[in-house]
């Protein structure tokens, strides 16, 4: 296949250096959840890097300038499969002996494929159109964003210093989670505001992670302007992926510092618990295990706060997964790969369930809507059972 465009143009300086820094040691394979469930080294991190470097050499080297940019179609196909089967959880980079930042490298390699019309794969390709039409990646009607789940007794202010962003996955696929969020916020008693359903559009993360970056600036501008108009000083959100793009990428798309702070809901609730504005009244004599979402722990360093909140529940015994904190294992929902490689996602979700059951936990506590949806789905038809609950869903029951 003749290609006029050179691969590698989307990579930053550091990312180009990262490609050269990979020693192909293969240590990351031990930490990769996709490897764990598929056992396919041909889609592993060093293979992705090797294939992409080959694509770069075949289109952007002295040899390619002299003899033409001939690209092997099989190489393109193999690379596309590998880069889109990944959950972009970043565990490989976290455990990489030369410190590659793979949680950021893979989305850029996906963008490289999108720029050439070679990605994304499967239903992911529809996402920009669907987000444009409905404001969310699930093709759900915007007016149904907060209904019928929104609790009637929760007060939402017209404008306030604090705003809460529900997020598309939470609003459409993990309602018990966002219901728990707003009930806890309500119990704290400080006024908080939300955008009207048709204004609370996608944060951009599903587009970002699949390499489709065209709409990101527009979505960021719309949301930032809307919150700014409400006089918001702190924007709260419970979805790790939304929090990630808001804190790290919105300032880039917005072009300057955001006019408000981004906080994960556990930070806010933990603070309010410590200040005594909210109290956990009920006792819970149970063994619970908390799963760190990849984009919350590895992404923005929220590790202590959920544990501090759970630790303040009287009677509770808090267990840990073997891989926790920055080393946590992906639940299977990451990287929008679940939309294409459904069976991998289910198998990964079951690994999490199995470990929780083996550790004799009574409850598996999550704090991500995508994990919530996927792990619940993984439990269907699985021989091991455990009660799954979102952290705020649990706290809302106890305050």
């Amino acid at each position, binding site marked *: 296949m003749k290609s006029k465009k050179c691969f590698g143009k989307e990579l930053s300086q*550091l990312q180009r250096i990262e490609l050269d820094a990979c020693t192909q040691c293969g240590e990351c394979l031990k930490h990769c959840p996709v490897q764990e469930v598929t056992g396919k080294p041909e889609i592993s991190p060093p293979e992705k890097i*090797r294939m992409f470097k080959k694509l770069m050499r075949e289109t952007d080297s002295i040899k390619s300038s002299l003899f033409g940019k001939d690209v092997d179609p099989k190489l393109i196909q193999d690379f596309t499969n590998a880069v889109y089967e990944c959950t972009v959880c970043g565990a490989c980079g976290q455990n990489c002996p030369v410190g590659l930042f793979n949680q950021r490298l893979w989305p850029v390699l996906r963008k490289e494929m999108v720029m050439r019309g070679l990605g994304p794969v499967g239903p992911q390709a529809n996402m920009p159109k669907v987000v444009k039409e409905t404001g969310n990646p699930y093709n759900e009607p915007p007016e149904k964003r907060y209904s019928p789940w929104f609790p009637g007794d929760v007060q939402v202010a017209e404008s306030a210093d604090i705003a809460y962003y529900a997020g598309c996955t939470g609003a459409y696929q993990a309602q018990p989670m966002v219901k728990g969020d707003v009930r806890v916020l309500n119990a704290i008693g400080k006024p908080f505001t939300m955008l009207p359903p048709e204004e609370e559009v996608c944060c951009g993360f599903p587009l970002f992670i699949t390499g489709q970056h065209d709409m990101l600036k527009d979505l960021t501008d719309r949301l930032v302007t809307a919150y700014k108009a409400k006089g918001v000083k702190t924007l709260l959100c419970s979805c790790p992926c939304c929090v990630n793009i808001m804190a790290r990428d919105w300032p880039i798309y917005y072009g300057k510092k955001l006019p408000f702070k981004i906080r994960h809901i556990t930070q806010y609730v933990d603070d309010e618990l410590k200040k005594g504005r909210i109290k956990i009244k009920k006792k819970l004599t149970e063994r619970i295990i908390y799963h760190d979402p990849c984009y919350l722990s590895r992404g923005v360093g929220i590790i202590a706060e959920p544990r501090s909140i759970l630790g303040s529940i009287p009677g509770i015994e808090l267990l840990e997964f073997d891989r926790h904190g920055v080393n946590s294992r992906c639940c299977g929902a990451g990287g929008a790969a679940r939309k294409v490689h459904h069976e991998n996602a289910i198998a990964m979700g079951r690994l999490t369930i199995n470990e929780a059951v083996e550790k004799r936990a009574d409850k598996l506590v999550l704090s991500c809507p995508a994990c919530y949806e996927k792990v619940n789905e993984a439990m269907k038809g699985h021989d091991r059972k455990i009660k799954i609950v979102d952290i705020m869903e649990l706290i809302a029951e106890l305050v």
Partner: protein
Amino acid sequence: MSFFLTLSAYCAFILFLIRLFSHIWSWINADKEPASDPLVNGKISPSLLWNALLDILFFRRVYATNKLLWAASWTFHLSFFLVLLRHLRYVLYPVPGFIVFIQPAGKIAGYILPLSLLLILIVRLTGGKDRYLSVYNFFLVGLLMLTSLTGIFMSSLFRTDLVNAKAFVFGMVTAAPATLPESRLFAVHFILFLVLLPSLPFHLIASPVTTIEARKREQALYKVIHEK
């Protein structure tokens, strides 16, 4: 043969330089990371630099992931470095005192080098379900193994005339080609080195950069949304 090897040596060196410059050129020409991304634009403090230096010198990140691989790869890199230093006596005149000083250590490193390579190979091939060995790494390990073994044979079993060897290599460096010593083993050792030179992996210069970046990122992680 002397002419052929001399020409090949210049070609190998030119190839190495082309590869080196094209990689550095590709790095220089790429865009910098956006300044507002907190995770990739952390500050470099003296303590961060010190820790990163220890990471680089002692392969602390490898140690954290795989102790056996750490033992093998750190020993390999150190012995390879010492062997390279030892070989500088063939291209420098007069030979600096430091290079004379490390000669015994370089000789011992020459024996340790193939053993460390063997250990790397064993660690890689016995990785169980997650075993991974790329063709390129397999090729490099094989090449280094053969180069080091021919070197050991030359300095122990089948001694080569070192004066002639130095004259040949030094002549090449000073653009005054000399005759190849009468040793097939030397010719093989030298050819293997000529294959190795343009095949050297760039992680040698790229990984210290990514190791420093990883430190910066770890330090910045708890500031992304924790700032007051």
